[in-house]
């Protein structure tokens, strides 16, 4: 029943001309191949729409600032100074963008495979826990600890996501629902581990006295993520990792055979089944991969930003990363751009506070940008329809 509905909408979304020759599944396959290939659209139109709506989103935020008595010029300039103004602020933007991009890249994989895993927030938390176990319980040089922590984080995040995948393919539980529930379990698991008798608990200073706060020890200095100096900017290694991951995933989805099968599974599960793609196997793999990327983001947060586990360690990175992937229409390249915008907003917000403007305006601007970014495809589709209608009228 469920698959029938989705197949229905998938076909309806792409009213391509009837495929020449072939019937039934063959025709649908031909149709599918066509739609997979015809993704290329006029690029300038897209870029213009992107920039236009970016400006629109930004102006909504500025309007709110203006309405409450803060000059838009001040807001803009401090946002710019804080995010792009100096090499330090650029590095800060990239640091903030790195975990977001990792989460988004993972989300792109599972969304393309048609597996709607929205539990990245929990998988990030599990990643941070996994990295924490390595960092706080394994002795060794940083060159050993850091890769080990990333491995543990990816495995922990991947396994957590697998729970949702197993429930889906084993018991038919909707993955949206199960992955969402797992987010809250992860949250409680983290707090249990870092408080009281938990194995990641720190006995050091707490607000109410030694050992009372729910927190882990601090990450030792040699396990902190290093940065690489590129053209005078201290580029955090996590960002380079995330960028490489994004490029690899984009290449994997576009140009490899498994990536192609993954996209077919996402576009039309019925066709995928007919041509011998095992939805349980490929689907679970995609979900596990997305969890692993989110887990790696958890390691990045612990080893590169917070240096300590606190309740809410993932600080909504999972939600934001998911948002980026979806707002980018599950496109890895656009995700990079959006992650940079998000990172710049976080970094720029840091400076806004100093100007007496409440930092939270950054959230408003970012959310307005996301909503605004969702509109261009709708607009472009309307434009295209109009153009086709004109062409038909002329003919």
């Amino acid at each position, binding site marked *: 029943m469920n698959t029938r509905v989705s197949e229905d909408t998938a076909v309806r979304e792409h009213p391509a001309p009837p495929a020449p020759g072939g019937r039934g599944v063959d025709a649908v396959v031909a149709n599918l191949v066509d739609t997979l290939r015809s993704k290329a659209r006029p690029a300038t139109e897209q870029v213009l729409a992107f920039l236009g709506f970016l400006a629109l989103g930004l102006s909504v935020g500025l309007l709110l600032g203006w309405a409450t008595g803060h000059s838009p010029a001040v807001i803009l300039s401090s946002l710019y100074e804080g995010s792009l103004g100096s090499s330090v602020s650029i590095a800060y933007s990239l640091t903030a963008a790195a975990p977001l991009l990792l989460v988004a890249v993972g989300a792109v994989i599972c969304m393309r495979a048609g597996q709607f895993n929205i539990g990245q927030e929990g998988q990030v938390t599990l990643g941070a826990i996994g990295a924490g176990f390595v960092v706080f319980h394994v002795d060794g040089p940083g060159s050993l600890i850091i890769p080990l922590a990333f491995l543990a984080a990816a495995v922990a995040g991947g396994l957590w996501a697998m729970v949702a995948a197993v429930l889906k393919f084993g*018991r038919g539980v909707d993955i*949206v629902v199960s992955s969402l529930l797992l987010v809250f379990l992860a949250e409680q698991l983290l707090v249990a581990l870092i408080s009281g008798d938990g194995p990641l608990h720190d006995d050091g200073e707490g607000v109410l006295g030694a050992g009372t706060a729910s927190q882990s020890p601090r990450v030792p200095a040699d396990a902190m993520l290093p940065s690489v100096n590129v053209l005078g900017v201290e580029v955090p290694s996590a960002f380079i990792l995330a960028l490489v991951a994004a490029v690899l995933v984009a290449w994997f989805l576009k140009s490899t055979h498994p990536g192609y099968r993954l996209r077919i599974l996402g576009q039309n599960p019925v066709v995928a089944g007919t041509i011998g793609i095992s939805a349980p196997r490929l689907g679970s793999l995609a979900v596990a991969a997305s969890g692993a990327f989110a887990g790696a983001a958890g390691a990045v947060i612990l080893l590169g930003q917070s240096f300590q586990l606190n309740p809410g360690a993932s600080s909504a990175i999972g939600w934001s990363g998911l948002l980026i992937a979806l707002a980018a229409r599950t496109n890895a390249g656009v995700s990079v751009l959006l992650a940079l915008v998000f990172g710049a907003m976080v970094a720029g917000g840091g400076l806004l506070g100093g100007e007496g403007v409440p930092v939270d305006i950054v959230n*408003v601007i970012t959310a307005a940008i996301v909503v605004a970014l969702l509109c261009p495809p709708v607009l472009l589709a309307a434009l295209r329809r109009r153009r086709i209608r004109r062409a038909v009228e002329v003919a």
Partner: protein
Amino acid sequence: MSVAMDLETILAASVPLTVPLLFAGLGEYVAQRAGTFNLSVEGMMLGSAFAAAYGASATGSPVVGLLCGMLAGLAVAFVHGNLSHRLQLNTYVVGLALNMLVLGVTNYLLSTTVLDIPRGSAWQVPLLSDLPIIGKAFFVQPWVVYLIAPLVLLIWYVRRTRLGLELRAVGDDPGASDLTGINVNARRRQALLFCGLCSGVGGAYLSVFQSGSFTSGMTAGRGYIVIAAVIFGGWMLRGVIGACAVFGVAQGLQLALPAIGYSVSPQLLAATPYLLALCSLAVLGARSKRPLALGMPFAPVR
């Protein structure tokens, strides 16, 4: 200490925590049955909590606060409905973005305003409030709480009308609904608006009637708990009410158990409802009454 007193303590702690979940949960139930996986319920609650606090503090009247809260919930629902059921944008993106937007707007406005909220007073239901154990917990509450009863009755009644059937139909099979002449997206928008209204009451209860204050991000994930409760309740009215109570009691126990001298890991308590929900889903599997087209956009063919 007697068992009765312990029970009374637990109930007294649980009921105020259950009320906002129930209001929002009933709304979310309707929205989900109509096919919207509404993540923005968190934003609806937070926005309405702030609007209610603002309205009540500006006019000195909790009633005006409640109305402001309902308006704010409606506003979020209006935006969500039009973006996802008119422009066909992905409902998850819209929901997450709206949550972020509302969090930003409320925090921003909170730092530029000073709130002085008049608290809604408690109503004592005659006779019933004298009942042992449950009397104080259930029948000495702010008047808003008693709105739950007519709300449940309303939903129960509407389920038996043509409107209720249509609302469920657009959640289960939008294609067939469209063919029979139901305006699928309009029905979905209406369900969302109803959800906004209910969440608005829940949010207003949080800030004006329960705590008498508004703090940054005060819903603290209650919206997501509500979604979990609708899932746990198996998308059935009585299930959702029961699930909200389970989540509320789990929260209440975290407060009440230390007070009556037990120590149970608060994390375990908080995690139990989610675990129960996951287990019940795993047992039910595909047999659960999940609306078949939950979260799927519908574009009518013209």
